[in-house]
């Protein structure tokens, strides 16, 4: 059983990503549960999506220190989610930077992109992979596909789902052009991981 946490800012497609993973899991013959906080004006608020995939999954959520993988779609939210990581866990972080309003209102500019990245690197060391997800998504055709770029990176590492299962899942959740762009984005995410592995 794998516990995966998707950490994002409302509107980034964190929920869509968890849905794609759940559909892929079911098509792969595994059972899946996801739990999340949605509704209300969660746009631009912190959103956590819990995804659990395995043989016999019952609970839709898990506790701090229990995530095998964290997929962060935004740097602040990735830092916020690290308390969920297991000792042995891995974090995939998109290099998106969207400071919350509360940070901009504070007179002291204590945070900046570099500081957030440094904090992540210091906390996680080898467990962290930062992904130029925006560039890859734009290459695929839309900045909205950052979520699926991250799925490509994640799955290249975890090898949880067969590729054709992921394509089907993407297309069932995102019909039409969004689905086509997302399949490309998924491939670019995978390729990025493969390049990294080669150069490492």
């Amino acid at each position: 059983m794998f516990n995966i946490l998707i950490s994002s800012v409302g509107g980034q497609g964190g929920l869509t990503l968890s849905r794609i993973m759940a559909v892929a899991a079911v098509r792969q013959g595994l059972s899946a549960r996801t739990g999340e906080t949605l509704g209300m004006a969660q746009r631009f608020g912190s959103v956590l999506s819990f995804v659990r995939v395995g043989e016999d999954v019952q609970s839709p959520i898990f506790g701090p220190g229990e995530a095998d993988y964290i997929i962060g779609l935004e740097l602040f939210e990735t830092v916020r989610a690290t308390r969920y990581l297991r000792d042995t866990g891995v974090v995939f972080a998109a290099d998106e930077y969207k400071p919350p309003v509360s940070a901009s209102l504070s007179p002291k500019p204590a945070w900046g992109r570099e500081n957030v990245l440094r904090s992540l690197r210091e906390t996680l060391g080898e467990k962290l992979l930062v992904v130029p997800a925006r560039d890859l998504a734009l290459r695929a055709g839309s900045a909205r596909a950052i979520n699926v770029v991250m799925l490509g990176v994640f799955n290249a590492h975890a090898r949880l789902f067969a590729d054709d299962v992921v394509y089907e899942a993407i297309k069932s959740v995102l019909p039409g052009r969004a689905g086509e762009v997302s399949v490309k984005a998924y491939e670019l995410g995978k390729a990025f991981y493969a390049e990294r592995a080669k150069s490492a």
Partner: protein
Amino acid sequence: MGNEAIARGAWEAGVRVVTGYPGTPSSEVIMTFHEEGRGLPIYVEWAVNERVAFEIAYGAAIGGVRALVTMKAPGLNVASDPVLSAAYSGVEGGLVILVADDPGPHTTQTEQDSRWYAKLSKLPMFTASTPQEAKDTVKRLFRVSEELKLPVIFRTTTRLNHAVGDVVLGEVEERDARPSFKKDPPRFVRAGMKWNLERHAWLNGVLRRVEEVASSLGFNKVEGSGEYCVVTEGVAYNYVYEALRGLGEARVKVLRVDQLYPVPSKFLAENLSSCRRVIVVEELDPYLEAEVKKLAYEERLGAEVMGKEEGLLPLEGELNPSLVKGALYRWLGVPQGQESTPAADVRLPERPPPLCPGCPHAFSYIALKLGIARAGYKLSEVPVFGDIGCYALSVNRPIEAIWTEHSMGASISMAMGLKVAGYDKPVVATIGDSTFFHAGIPSLIEAVHKRVDMLVLILDNRVVAMTGHQSTPSWEVTESGRQARGIDIVEVVKSIGVDEVAVVDPYDFNKMVETVASMIKRPGVKVLVAQHPCRLMEVRQLKTVKKYRVIEDKCTGCRACVNVTGCPALYIEDGKAKIVEDDCTGCGLCARFCPYKAIVEVGGA
């Protein structure tokens, strides 16, 4: 998703009327019908409020048709009056009342435990643990309802409604769905006190049959064996299941109660008779715990029953697997084992949901504050009453507009209360369009009738935005494609006889400031309707959206843009304002407040 599964279950059961009022975490049931159910012979529409929704479903059910009504927990408070009477009159066709509680709470004003409503209303109540069971349960509840001739409450919590999981679909039942209604005053006329007494006796008799009917349909289950027994229900069962699986020992018996009211006392007494120690694991109030303790006394079970009252689990907030595991292991006297150490928790700035970029409510509240000031009042002396909706997010920095947010429609009557008590400065009530239709109209009638001096600001964005853009009574075509008669909110306000009505587009910012400043000083009930569609909805319909950009050389980093608007598309980095282009909706509010004219339009994209 649990809510999609519930919709599917109702469809499989041959439901013909589905109504409700949007409310997280219940909304997706009706949204699923709207998305997937086009062309089905089912009436699926949002109603103006939960009370009306229930009465529509009830009217269908007394005609022998299966009906479903959905709401969040506070919605049951609104619907409670007809719900309580419905227990005396009962139904012919199955009627399922879905009420979604929100432990946490994630998106609700209280952590209401609606299980108490079952005892209060004397209506059978059931629950489920997984999306699959949610589908199967709703299907079986229509049969329970018809067997007992009573409405049945299906009580869920957020982690079931919003849990996604694999669900195996079933057949759709073919049913004769022509309604018929036989005149039967003793049953349906609650004006007869003798009849009411008789129906109460009938109701008490029916309640004695619930367990038999429920067990014949497979509700309530036992797993494992031993002298250590866990009584649990709903979502909490999932956490118990996983905690005990981790233990790898079969010395614990688990009783899962699906029938929450009346509690299945035979099932519990039989299965608890061999238990030495019992723990009750449930979310929110110790409801089952009290029932089990009472039963233990009555049946002389001799088992020690523990739960929240003994402090094993918290009385507030939602449960999670770690909490339940910790409680069970402590209770069993088993060491917790090697816990994984979470990575360091860094102090980060919070990110509560803000008003969206371009939100017309942001314009309205900022204009309201400027208008109050322009009229010569201090902001600290003019209370701004808020109401339920996205616009309540105006409480956050930097707008910090509303002083209260209480319950649907309460802004107008609470403002009136302060005024009639003798408050000598102006009072302002602010209320959204859907909330006004839902519960604001009677409050406005009251304020007008008693000639109260107050300003009512109706924030009309033409949609129920907070819960995911559902229709309001102003729509000409509903989500199901039904041709509707749009209700004009301004005409409604006029017809109540208010002293003054004005309509303004909050994007016409200066005009709105002036209008507020002049209206607030005059006597009587003044209503200002601020009309502009929800920007998220509007942007989807616009072909091109303007964007704004910061001219770096001109920006001094004074932060006026962020400090006034709090727009989440803006941030400050290296002493300069920046705009997240993806998120900018081109409203221009920030540019208006830049003293250095450093924020400029960059055309359509």
